[in-house]
């Protein structure tokens, strides 16, 4: 049986102000996929991400955001400096993940509250839930944001450089958590990263973009491909 498509690009061109960085991009993320998006700085990774999230329209082509329409998309953005001294408890941050469900949301329902508790338990931050976000370590903060993404997601997680700013132990921890979510919970993952080792080790599919060409295939195919060989040597 064909696995369900969560996100798909059909002949998409991306770029700034009519200057395309990338053309004729075709790929799909299906249930159970684990995709790493690689590329040099300025190759259009963040532009691609914005388009995949529906924040900026592509120059040409069509992006089918099935998971987002169904309210099954969770997003882990990069942390902003303003968040570092933000007065909010872990629980408040995690619960805000449920805002993608429609409705006025005067309060969170008890089903949402217990789902949040469950996700916090899964990520090992349950005992932190009354703590203040700004007092946590970088790795703990990233877990909180991942937990918020889980509250929003039931099908697809999109992660933007998730290991940036984490020490090696914390980033190993994060990748382990992602693997658990992928293997056990059946979560599809699309992760933008510049960490080539982690991408080759963790992901099943590599999407490499750069210099007006792109590659999408399994890790083995990628290592045989020209862009993989060049990028991997660096």
């Amino acid at each position, binding site marked *: 049986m064909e696995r369900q498509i969560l996100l798909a690009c059909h002949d998409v061109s991306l770029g700034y102000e009519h200057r395309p960085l990338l053309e004729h991009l075709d790929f799909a993320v299906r249930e159970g996929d684990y995709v790493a998006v690689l590329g040099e700085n300025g190759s259009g990774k963040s532009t691609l991400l914005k388009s995949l999230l529906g924040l900026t329209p592509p120059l040409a082509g069509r992006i089918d955001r099935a998971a987002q329409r169904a309210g099954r998309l969770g997003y882990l953005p990069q942390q902003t400096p303003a968040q570092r001294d933000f007065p909010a408890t872990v629980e408040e941050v995690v619960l*805000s993940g449920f805002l993608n469900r429609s409705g006025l949301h005067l309060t969170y329902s008890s089903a949402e509250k217990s789902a949040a508790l469950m996700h916090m338990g899964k990520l090992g931050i349950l005992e932190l839930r009354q703590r203040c976000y700004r007092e946590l370590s970088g790795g703990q903060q990233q877990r909180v944001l991942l937990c918020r993404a889980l509250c929003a997601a039931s099908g697809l997680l999109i992660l933007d450089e998730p290991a940036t700013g984490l020490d090696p132990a914390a980033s190993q921890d994060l990748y382990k958590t992602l693997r658990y979510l992928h293997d056990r919970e059946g979560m599809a993952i699309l992760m933008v990263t510049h960490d080539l080792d982690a991408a080759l080790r963790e992901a099943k599919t590599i999407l490499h973009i750069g210099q007006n060409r792109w590659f999408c295939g399994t890790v083995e195919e990628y290592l045989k491909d020209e862009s993989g060989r060049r990028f991997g040597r660096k």
Partner: protein
Amino acid sequence: MSLLLSMLAYPFIVRAFVVGALVSLCAALLGVPLVLKRYSMIGDGLSHVSFGALAVALACGFAPLWFSIPVVMLAAFFLLRLAESSRVSADAAIAVLSASALAVGVVVTSLTTGMTTDVDSYLFGSILAMSRSDVVLSVTLAVFVLSLFAAFYHRLFAVTFDESFARATGVKVGTYKTLLSLLTALTVVLGMRMMGAMLISSLVIFPALSAMRVFRRFRSVVVFAGALAVACFCAGLAGSYLLSTPVGATVVLCDLAAFLVCAAVGRR
């Protein structure tokens, strides 16, 4: 108690009390997201623009409120765009705009009426400035701000904490930010004539800063900032009545004292 009664015997103090307490409350509530999003300077910029607009309105014989409210709202919209764009350094641009608006105000006044006590009361505030229509407007504003916070509290939190996540989950971030800045503009215009153009922005910034020192939960910060702002305004109004000092400066000093206490408590 007798102090309270003797103060409330003057109708202008009653008006000042109603307007000031409501404006303080609104400014403090709006101030929490503004300070956290690093937009504190917008409040300051708006107060200067509002001074310029009032001076022009007075010189041309327009109704001051009805002229300055749209001008300042326009400025708020513009300042927000400015603060967001990465091309110009926003803090420098806001500083330039503030100084220019102030200069326009001063030049226009000195060309027409001359630097009178009117200008002085715009710069540093006057308790006599509140009219009946100010009372009506400030009650409307307060109802609007409070219902915004009640109905969209969670979304405001999401937009303040993490814009890109909020946007990706389908919250209309731009609408909320525009609404915030327009309401701030209205608050500044209403409060300025009592608090003074130089001092009104402290109503936006101080309560949020003080509350953030003491509390670690966003909800507590919002509630405490609102309560503290009203308390400081009442203390400032009473102080200004007793000592015959300008009400704006006295309120700011109360806010400063409260901030120092909060900082000391938060440090423990």
